């Protein structure tokens, strides 16, 4: 099952400002497609438009090549999992899973068989006679999944299905969801505000911000080649460092004692935004030629995340595998970066990326 969005747009009747503009993508059969963005970016609206719960103002929606703009939800042959799970508190687990099958005119034995199968898939067979109130958050989530499974729809829309779970459970469910999707051959469109979810689960990610698509690509490409500042800082933990710098000769001067050598010629004197992932920032613990001072240090067991302050007070995040001696107040010298990403200061758009960039304390003459 494929889903094509062609320049979809949404403007609510009582407002002039569109909630979404110009969304175009083709979701392939059996793809796990994640829509990610901060709250209010319009991602849930987009999902509801696909589901048929919210009308489409402009553009075309095609499901399996068929124009679906005006089809009622039922005719779109899809399942949906809601953030709140949308379980009926007055029905048992089994009845919740079977809800809607009657409306689709399945026979009683068929319903029973589908429900049993779906519950088995999510390991809830024993709890089938309980009411949702008597279930834990994770179990409720599974019931919601089972309902989607039982519907036998090949498209499953998920609206932040894991956001009400605790961190550990969420991590486990990510894997299970992904497995389920592959096992059932589902085309999934998954909405989340959590970039980790997007990174770990998605075949492809669509990043939405300010009512517009920012980038659509695989997680690795999004991480490595963010199209703009927003995408760069939205992905990756800890967040990418975005520093302002001025082009001076062949170098980018971040501060007088922190310069990056770039190969690509840039117009002299322009101000740029330099993006460096914390884990790609190279530094030495030394007082000689030091250009930053450690401010905070957080140990995460296998690694250590620190913030440091440059001489012009800009903050820099860095990650070190060494669990040794880094302490607040220590002086460090930033020596280079495995990769820097340069953005236009005004538009935030990507200019170029450079690998293995060296940093110097002073501007090399000539």
């Amino acid at each position, binding site marked *: 099952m494929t889903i094509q969005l062609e320049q979809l747009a949404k403007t609510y009747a009582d407002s002039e400002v569109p909630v979404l503009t110009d969304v175009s993508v083709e979701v392939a059969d059996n793809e796990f497609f994640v829509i990610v963005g901060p709250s209010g970016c319009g991602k849930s609206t987009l999902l509801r438009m696909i589901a048929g719960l919210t009308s489409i103002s402009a553009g075309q929606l095609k499901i399996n090549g068929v124009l679906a703009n005006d089809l009622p*939800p039922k005719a779109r042959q899809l399942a949906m999992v*809601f953030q709140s799970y949308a379980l009926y*508190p007055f029905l048992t687990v089994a009845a919740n899973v079977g809800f809607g099958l009657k409306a689709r005119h399945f026979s009683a034995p068929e319903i029973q068989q589908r429900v049993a199968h779906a519950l088995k898939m999510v390991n809830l067979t024993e709890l089938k006679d309980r009411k949702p109130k008597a279930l834990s958050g994770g179990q409720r989530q599974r019931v919601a999944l089972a309902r989607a499974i039982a519907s036998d729809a090949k498209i499953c829309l998920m609206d932040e299905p894991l956001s009400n779970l605790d961190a550990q459970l969420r991590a486990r469910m990510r894997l299970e969801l992904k497995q389920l999707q592959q096992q059932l051959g589902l085309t999934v469109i998954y909405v989340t505000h959590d970039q980790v979810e997007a990174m770990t689960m998605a075949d492809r990610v669509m990043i939405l911000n300010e009512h517009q698509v920012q980038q659509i690509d695989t997680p690795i490409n999004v991480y490595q080649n963010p199209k703009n500042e927003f995408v760069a800082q939205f992905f990756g933990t800890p967040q990418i460092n975005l520093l302002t710098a001025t082009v001076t000769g062949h170098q980018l001067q971040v501060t007088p004692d922190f310069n990056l050598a770039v190969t690509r010629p840039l117009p002299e004197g322009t101000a740029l935004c330099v993006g460096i992932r914390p884990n790609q920032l190279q530094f030495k613990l030394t007082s000689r030629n030091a250009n930053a001072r450690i401010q905070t240090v957080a140990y995460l067991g296998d690694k250590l995340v620190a913030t440091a302050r440059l001489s012009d007070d800009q903050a820099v995040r860095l990650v070190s595998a060494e669990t040794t001696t880094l302490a607040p107040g220590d002086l460090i010298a930033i020596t280079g970066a495995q990769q820097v990403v340069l953005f236009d200061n005004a538009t935030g758009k990507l200019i170029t990326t450079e690998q293995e960039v060296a940093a110097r304390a002073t501007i090399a003459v000539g």
Partner: protein
Amino acid sequence: MQQSLSGKAKTRPLTPANVTVGRRRWSERGYALLFLGPSLALLAVFIFWPMLKTLYMSFFLTDKFGHITVFNGLGNYRSLLQDASYWASLGATLSYVAVVAVLTIVLGLILAVAAQQQLKGIGFFKTLFSSTMGISVSVAAIFWLFAFNPSVGVFAQLSQALHLPEINWLADPHFALLAIIITTVWMNLGFTFLILFGALQQVPRSLYDAADVAGVAKRTQFLKVTLPMISPTLFFVTTVTLIDAFKSFGLIDLMTAGGPSNATNLLVYRVYQDAFLNGSYAQASTESVVLTLLIAVVTLVQFKLFGKRVTY
């Protein structure tokens, strides 16, 4: 903790540890009594004692001061049950209560569902629907008395203009109870609407979304989603409406005073008449006892019948 409540603590050997626990237990009970005491005392003086006294009086005759004079055994009950007009009152009360409850709930629900629609100017209607909540019984009575006036009332003029048969709402025994029912339902509607509207608002949107996606028709959604979801509120409103209807007094006193031909002489009104107009306190006590039993039975039946269907 739990053991002492179930009384098992008493049979345990008195080890020093138990003694201190027991003491703490006692002082906790003392505190409980201290806090409950005032309300228990008030309940005893103003509820329990009068209830017992009423039951006691129902087996006697009372003089004009309300003093108990002659023991009458079950005589009061016997004459009550032999009184055809009492059975008429009972019948009127039951039909009144049933019709008022059904109409109040159904109309309240219809209004609440209507008010939920995203329509222009719905705010005005919400205010209008709930407005009867702020109207006192006497004001409502005056308003409806005028409306029911057979010569100058709205209904009379309407039926004259439309050449419909004229109905003498309050003086015709066939219509007086209906007139009272209309007025009561009208008065109840504000509160019921507000409560049910609130309950409807509480139903999560996502449940309807899920039903939409599953392909459940809107009408079926009302039966399969909305009604079960608001069933606790419906149950509450029904209970309140039933008990309220049994206790209806003000409108009757102001509009028909139990007439015509006892058509609106509901049980509570009868108690009032017998006690405070006729000075037959024993008779009134007997009627009160029967009425209390009746309300208890109806409430019990309601809990048995519908309590199970309520989903929380």
